[in-house]
């Protein structure tokens, strides 16, 4: 949805009965699509790109569960997973497995906003849009690959990381047609319909449906940033796809209509959302630092610290931001940030490690010894224990 490419409309969408109850494939062609979906899911599992935090997954599924009754779907019809992908992506496979990237989770700031995305995707799933398009629209897969080559080329691959955008990497593989509709977007009308129905589902679930406007605004903000950084040439690839700006305008119109109708607002659940996605925000910030996306990383870190001003992890992230800068590198500010983390929690091992390594880099070996020893004492089972111990031996031996 959010690595958005338009679908050039082909035949009009056939009349296909939506899912209800417990969805199952209804003919051999659809069964084949479901099997391909399962195979793709297994690839994602094997690549270790699915976030393994079971509490996060459980939380995302609790949001899905609230939305399903609107679509007359049984619980467990749709299962949500977070992908280790720092960009904005969300898609649902034809068999009901829904994926949302960590980047997207980090971009939003309320449960209602992510519910808007989920509602949109579940609308596609419930209406079996992918199946319909798969059968009746035979768009060349190669065209999709060419379009997405722009984004893949701009991502750097991130060998050690799932890869921004993982979804787009996968589009180069054998599951391209499967993902095509989910990622590129369906015909304009189908996308608008999914937005409209999704928003209704959000309202029916007791959320504040006006947050869908907020969600679109936050997407637009990030899309423009991607363009500014030249990671994409433009956010929209095909003329038929409703651009985020258009979708935002529609959501605002629906918002006005609801306000006039006197519809009551619902829940936003900002704090629970921020609490449950806090680790994801910092992880996405760290990944953006590796991508040299300093502005986005800083925005995420600042949002984290605004919500959790006494948590040391945020200050360690801030210290990393100052340390890793290119043009605006500030080691004094980095050291201050690490020390602030320790002021809130003197036993926070990562802060000791980072301060120790920074001191070593600056040639302050007394400081390095103090903090690196403290790090090893606090986290005796750290993966880098032997590396840090080696550094301490070198310092003790007089060589940096």
């Amino acid at each position: 949805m959010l690595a958005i490419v338009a679908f050039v409309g082909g035949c009009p969408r056939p009349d296909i009965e939506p899912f209800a109850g417990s969805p199952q494939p209804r003919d051999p062609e659809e069964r084949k699509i479901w099997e391909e979906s399962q195979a793709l899911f297994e690839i994602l599992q094997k690549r270790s790109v699915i976030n393994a935090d079971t509490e996060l997954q459980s939380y995302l599924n609790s949001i899905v569960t609230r939305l399903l009754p609107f679509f007359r779907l049984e619980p467990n019809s749709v299962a949500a997973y977070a992908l280790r992908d720092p960009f904005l992506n969300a898609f649902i496979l034809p068999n009901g497995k829904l994926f949302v990237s960590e980047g997207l989770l980090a971009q939003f700031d309320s449960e209602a906003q992510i519910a808007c995305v989920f509602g949109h995707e579940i609308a596609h799933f419930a209406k079996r849009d992918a199946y319909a398009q798969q059968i009746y629209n035979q768009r060349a897969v190669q065209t999709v690959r060419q379009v997405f080559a722009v984004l893949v080329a701009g991502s750097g691959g991130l060998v050690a990381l799932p890869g921004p955008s993982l979804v787009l990497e996968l589009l180069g593989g054998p599951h391209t047609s499967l993902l095509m509709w989910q990622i590129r977007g369906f015909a304009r009308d189908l996308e608008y319909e999914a937005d409209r129905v999704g928003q209704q589902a959000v309202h029916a679930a007791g959320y504040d449906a006006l947050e869908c406007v907020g969600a679109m605004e936050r997407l637009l903000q990030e899309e423009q940033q991607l363009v500014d950084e030249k990671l994409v040439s433009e956010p929209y690839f095909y003329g038929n796809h409703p651009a985020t700006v258009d979708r935002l305008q529609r959501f605002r119109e629906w918002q006005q209509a609801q306000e006039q109708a006197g519809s009551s607002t619902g829940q936003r659940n900002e704090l629970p959302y921020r609490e449950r996605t806090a680790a994801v925000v910092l992880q996405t910030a760290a990944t953006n630092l590796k991508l040299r996306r300093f502005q986005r990383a800083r925005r995420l870190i600042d949002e984290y610290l605004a919500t959790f001003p006494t948590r040391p992890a945020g200050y360690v992230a801030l210290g990393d931001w100052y340390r890793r800068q290119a043009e605006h590198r500030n080691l004094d500010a980095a050291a201050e940030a690490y020390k602030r983390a320790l002021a809130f929690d003197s036993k926070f091992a990562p802060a000791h490690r980072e301060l120790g390594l920074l001191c070593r880099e600056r040639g302050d070996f007394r400081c390095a010894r103090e903090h690196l020893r403290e790090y090893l004492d606090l986290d005796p089972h750290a993966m880098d224990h032997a590396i840090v111990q080696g550094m301490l031996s070198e310092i003790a031996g007089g060589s940096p």
Partner: protein
Amino acid sequence: MTSRSQHILASSPVLLLLLAVACVWGCAARSEFEPYRVPREEFRRLVHTIGILPPGIALSKARRREVAGYVEAALTETFRRLGYEVVGSDVVGPVWRRYASQISGLFNPLTGNPDEKKLETTRSYVARELARTHNVDVLAVTWTNVYRLLPPAIEQRGPRFKGEMLDFYGQPLLDMPQLVEAVSLNLELLEPDGRSLYAASVPVQWTKVYVARSYYTRPEGEVLSLSRVDAAIRVLLAKLEPAVPRASSAANNP
């Protein structure tokens, strides 16, 4: 064995060599690959100093050192000619090996797959160390890969690879498709903590081909000769942009 067969076998190393040359140059002439994984402007802004990891060459020990030396020499010459600073494998290799061994290896001993967490941890320390001591921006990682392919026969005139017919003295090796093995040379320019900026691969030469009812395996001494390596490196780096001067404060800080 007929005299013609004997003649073919006797000539085969030379002809395979010629075919490999034709293959590499043919590939170079027709190559339309895009090696950049990031926008070129970003690459030029970020990359000024390249550290060379010891090349991974799948040959026997003595030959491996020899070919690794060719590869590194060819890479170093090209990088320097384009204006990049180079830090050799004599510096980069020990740093990598030290951290990899301190973390007790990077691969799962049961499956042989890389342990992603250990790899990420090692990379981050290697990155910081090389940036601190030598201002290294990217690591040049090279490795060989042996793969099998089935060059298709076209119009019954014999197997071809990228448009070049496989033949001995103008006669097709076989008038049917055959499975052959070939070796490729691969290059990736990686930021030390994992992001790939540039990646390319080029087939170099045949290592095994079906001839006269049996498989002919190229003698190891002929695989990846100096001239073959030079040609391959030229192809791999054909699209590498010249370096730009480093902005004074734009150091790499992993």
